């Protein structure tokens, strides 16, 4: 079977880049979708030069309701099976979200609505090909509503429920769906923030995420130890949670 194609949406993020290199190293073609075309062209060139795969760029703006259907139409010629990776997100500061309701709406629109619509748009194609893998990046922020980040967390919690159900829908067709929740990762999003000494490299998150995909796991933390950290945090009583400034 051919290694097929990975469609990577939100392809400019450091984690998406690391994932793209891993799947291309395994021989898959890659379609990088996102807003920053100039940057994505650099990544696509890198995949072609390093791995000799077909890599190309297509525009995708998560705030555009027509974007999912356009993406599906644009990848019809790609080598099968198609695999889908969702790595786009917006994460403004909670304080900024509280000050600006448009930011609140935009967060849900991008992190939850656009991701759900994109998955839904690909469902017929995935079911028809009867194979393929879907990897969605969620967040540990979705495991509890935390004072410091609950708007973002709520969207990611909604996404987690959607992905779980979507996985149940895809399973009979032989399509695996995996939600990976990275902990702190050393990317542009966390650069310069405090307490990031133990942040994982994007490469290690990509390795863990794609291992979870290969194993067909529905949910996985990356790196692995976040599973235990989040188990503790999920078990905290609400009273305690309210007092923690996390």
């Amino acid at each position, binding site marked *: 079977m051919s290694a097929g194609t990975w469609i990577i949406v939100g392809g*400019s993020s450091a984690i998406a880049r690391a994932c793209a290199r891993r799947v291309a190293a395994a021989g898959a073609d890659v379609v990088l979708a996102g807003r920053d075309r*100039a940057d994505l062209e*650099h990544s696509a060139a890198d995949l072609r*030069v390093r791995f000799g795969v077909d890599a190309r760029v297509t525009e995708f703006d998560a705030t555009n309701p027509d974007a999912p259907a356009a993406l599906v139409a644009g990848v019809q010629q790609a080598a099968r099976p198609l695999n889908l990776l969702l790595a*786009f997100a917006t*994460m403004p500061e909670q304080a900024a979200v509280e000050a600006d309701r448009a930011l609140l709406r935009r967060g849900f629109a991008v992190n939850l609505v656009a991701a759900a619509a994109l998955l839904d748009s690909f469902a017929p194609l995935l079911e028809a090909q009867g194979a393929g893998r879907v990897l969605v990046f969620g967040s540990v922020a979705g495991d509890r509503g935390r004072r410091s980040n609950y708007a973002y967390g709520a969207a990611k919690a909604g996404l987690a429920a959607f992905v779980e159900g979507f996985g149940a829908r895809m399973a009979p067709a032989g399509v695996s769906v995996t939600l990976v929740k990275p902990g702190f990762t050393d990317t542009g999003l966390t650069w310069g923030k405090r307490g990031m000494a133990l942040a994982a490299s994007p490469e290690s998150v990509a390795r863990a995420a794609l291992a979870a995909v290969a194993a067909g796991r529905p949910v996985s933390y990356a790196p692995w130890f976040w599973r235990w950290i989040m188990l503790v945090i999920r078990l905290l009583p609400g009273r305690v949670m309210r007092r923690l400034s996390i």
Partner: protein
Amino acid sequence: MSALRSSDWASRRVAGWGRALTADMALARPERVADIGRAIAAAGPGGAIARGGGRSYGDAALGAAGFGIELGRLDRLLAFDPTSGALVAEAGVTFADLLAVFLPRGFLAPVTPGTGFATLGGALANDVHGKNHDRVGSFGDHVLWFDLVLASGETRRVTPDSDPELFRATIGGIGLTGVVSTLAVKLLRAPSTAFKVRMAPMAGLEPFLAALEGARAAAGYSVGWIDGLARGGALGRGVLETAEFADPPQPSFRPRRRLSVPIALPLVKRASIALLNRFYAARTGQTGQERIVPAEAFLYPLDALGNWNRLYGRKGFAQFQCVLPDAGAAAGLRALLQAPEREGVPPALVVIKTLGIAGRGYLSFALRGVTLALDVAMTGRTPALLERLADIALDHGGRVYLAKDAALSATQFARMYPQAEKLRAVKARVDPDGRFCSAMAQRLGLMATRA
């Protein structure tokens, strides 16, 4: 979509590779080329300096005003033409990465420094040389063009012909003209993934120099190791390594083991240096030997031990490297080798090579002659030693390598690099407000003094 935040600043204490000089810096780490210009604009008035692998030993990549722009995340290969060997890549690509990708395809960087952790941008900015300088010149000699993000935020593609002065000011220009985002460099055809290395014992300085001279024409690569503790008639004794690409088929090598020094651990002392020197000489034997070595192990011997700079303890170390013109090199080298003992600072590692033609940059290090590098632990007496060594180099018409330097005075520098004035003139044109500035640039008097 991720919000663009990668030009935010992270506060870090940053050290040169020698760990003796440090600076508290605010670092930006662009993940997209377009973010470089944003970081330049956002840096404070004292200006920023680009950083690559962090392998320059002194303060070449330490910010004078504390702002640094790390290029390590810009590590993408953009185009490769197997007919010409021309590679286009972002500046943060490392030599180790290049070797892993291209050696199996029969290509290698024409010039590589002694560590694979250095970046292409750093190699350009320091106009680095390798163990094959007599044959191929410096890194800058193989650069076809580069994209330079200027103080204004404008990106300009610079070729040797489009703006010869800006080209020559940037090659070897230690980052003072702008930030190189992308560059094109011609790779060399590599007939094999391994080297045939011949190690020959050298009894003293005179025979060593004669053998190095012979190797200039006869060998593809050559490098000498000197026992820095040897005195008297044995002064300058050591081992000459000459190498060629091995004939295929090569044996299959075990993957290189990677160890790392976890903490500052002051193990480099006179006794351990003596032990290591004896071990190295014994391994070579009386008559020398020949071995087939993977390219990585030959080109980057010290990379097998991560953070080896911690072996000098918390005070760190200095590497002094200078080049002396062929005429008078023997007398100069003798003086250089004798100086450490006079100051009571035993050199831990002493490396000697020959260099060929001068580099293209105004501040390029290379000139035809012999280069000597000495690693010494940082002690109270080390600064005096470094000053003395630089004076010896000056007395013999030589100059110190800025990629290694932590100690030159502005006066010594001006005598060693007479073309510095041309760099200043270009800088006045493309960076009149001094948006690019390093601690080294200030120390060496490279920044314009305001009237």
